[in-house]
């Protein structure tokens, strides 16, 4: 190899610096999202969820039929069937929007009712999970952070709540609150929405807020218990941070992954509970459809009109399955223990 004098000239600082570059910044979210994108099952579930959301929230506004619209003469149409009157319109050249799933015994289009039912189920699931998340994470964080006597008492309360039979409480609440709430709705116009939503649903929300947050509280508490031993928490104390600040900025911030995953997995569970309650008649009140109540009314005609039971059942399964799979995918993507 030929050497000459120029090789041995000292290198400048800039030339040395050019060899030292910092790698691209990869935040926690980017890294996790990258892993999520690679998970095919989770991505397909996400697509399904988006489609269901569009069907539930957006399509009914543009749909030609309304969920409570009872059209005389359209009773009990088969899927893609037309009534005598509608057939006549088609023959004379007008376009009649098809009934994809037929109609029910009161002439209401079933497809739009299923979509409304999904909307109700999803709303209940999401709102209930949000309530659970807020109550559960704060309760669990406070119990885990303070520890000692306070933690003992708070956790014994949680244990007691676990033993309460939720179904019984819902039935009792409905029984006791039904008439007072109805009176309130009828006398005070500000509370008129009670009638549309239905006493049953209100009681479901109350019960979720009272009882169902305990699972989340336990999980958050155990995560906080291990996090609070981390040295950066001691560092924050040494800086003079207040308890509230430490819980908010240091502890809960590091639990976000857990919170998101647990909440996502809570949604299908809440939807299932609501469907079940509506199925046994304790949920939404007519004419508001819920996937559960649609299934319940379809039971009677199961032999003649099986599609009326199949459609809501498949929809419930699809929603629950896709949320569960997506929640699993989230957990795999954001769980720090899996990081190597």
């Amino acid at each position: 190899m030929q050497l000459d004098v120029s090789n041995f000239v000292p290198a400048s600082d800039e030339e040395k610096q050019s060899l030292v570059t910092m790698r691209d910044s990869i935040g926690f979210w980017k890294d996790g999202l990258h892993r999520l994108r690679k998970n095919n099952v989770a991505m397909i579930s996400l697509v399904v969820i988006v489609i269901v959301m569009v069907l539930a929230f957006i399509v009914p506004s543009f749909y030609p039929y309304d969920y409570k619209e009872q059209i005389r003469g359209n009773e009990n149409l088969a899927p893609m069937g037309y009534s005598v009157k509608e057939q006549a319109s088609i023959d004379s050249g007008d376009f009649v929007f098809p009934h994809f799933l037929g109609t029910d015994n009161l002439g209401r289009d079933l497809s739009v009712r299923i979509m409304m039912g999904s909307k109700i189920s999803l709303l209940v699931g999401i709102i209930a999970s949000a309530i659970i998340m807020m109550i559960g994470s704060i309760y669990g964080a406070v119990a885990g952070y303070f520890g000692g006597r306070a933690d003992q008492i708070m956790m014994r309360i949680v244990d007691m709540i676990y033993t309460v039979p939720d179904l019984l409480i819902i039935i009792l609440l409905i029984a006791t609150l039904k008439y007072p709430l109805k009176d309130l709705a009828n006398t005070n116009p500000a509370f008129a929405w009670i009638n549309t939503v239905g006493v049953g649903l209100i009681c479901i929300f109350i019960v979720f807020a009272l009882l169902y947050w305990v699972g989340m509280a336990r999980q958050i508490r155990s995560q906080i218990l291990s996090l609070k031993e981390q040295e950066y928490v001691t560092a924050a104390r040494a800086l003079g941070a207040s308890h509230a600040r430490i819980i908010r900025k240091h502890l809960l911030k590091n639990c976000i992954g857990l919170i998101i995953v647990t909440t996502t997995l809570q949604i299908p569970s809440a939807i299932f509970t609501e469907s079940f309650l509506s199925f046994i008649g304790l949920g939404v009140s007519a004419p508001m459809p819920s996937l559960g109540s649609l299934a319940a009314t379809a039971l009677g005609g199961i032999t003649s009109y099986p599609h009326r039971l199949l459609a809501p059942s498949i929809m419930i399964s699809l929603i629950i399955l896709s949320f569960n799979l997506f929640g699993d995918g989230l957990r795999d993507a954001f769980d720090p223990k899996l990081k190597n």
Partner: protein
Amino acid sequence: MDKLVEAIHLKQYFNVGGSPLHPLQVKACDDVSFYIGKGETLGLVGESGCGKTTTGRSLLRLYEPTAGTIMYDGVDITHVSMKPYRRKMQIVFQDPYASLNPRMTVSDIVGEPLDIHKLSSSKKDRQDKIIAMLERVGLNSEHANRYPHEFSGGQRQRIGIARALAVDPEFIVCDEPISALDVSIQAQVINMFEKLQDEMGLTYLFIAHDLSVVKHISDRIGVMYLGKLVELADNMELTFHNLHPYTRSLISAIPVPDPRINRSRHRIILQGDVPSPLHPPSGCNFRTRCPYVTAICSEEEPEFKEVGPNHFCACHNLDMVPKA
């Protein structure tokens, strides 16, 4: 010299189980007294379990002392609210990986003390202060929006130091700040500590297990063993004219990077292991390994007293220990 920080008969005991009638206690810090003068660096050395980290953290009231008094600038702060003092007394931790919140950016980490103590007047002011602090420790503004995991150990330690400096403190407890760093980075960080002390007039309590480093950076050194201070003297005095048998063997056990010295050195190899802190020996707790042990050592605890100009030691048999 003005005393800035003083510990007077400081005791820190931890309950680790046992029954309510006979609780099992670890006497991590057992009746320790010393002071640190303004602008001084006091080094605290000892092996694992000696209580040096506990002592440092107790001074900052990160643990509530079991007994004893802590004085800061002449004021008894043992039982007061620490909020105003958190600005004046800070700490740098050993583990650069665990002491920074992985979900916060560097800017948030260094800015947190500014937010807690409301030290910035506007967003821009806060940002300026943060950048100034980063530059002071050898980082720059482009590091501000990154996360801790993107930095090396040495850089993370600098971020921790910037955080401690953000409030313009007077006193910093340096809890083994360089043990977790590579050798070639340690010198950078040691030099930085010294430079900051000169520039900002800081007082340090420098805790480490490596006596070579402590001797280099400290003015005076204290040696701890199983919760007790056994010797306290100027750094040169302690290194070359030490009196306590434990200090003697500690120094002799340290391998020096100089083959000729190693070949000619007489090394005192202590027998046996460090006793369990749950059941320390009666009397002097070094007696189980001491080459000069006598009967009195198991009956009476030696008093920590002045045995030379500014030189303290706790030993019954100093006359038996040959001159260093």
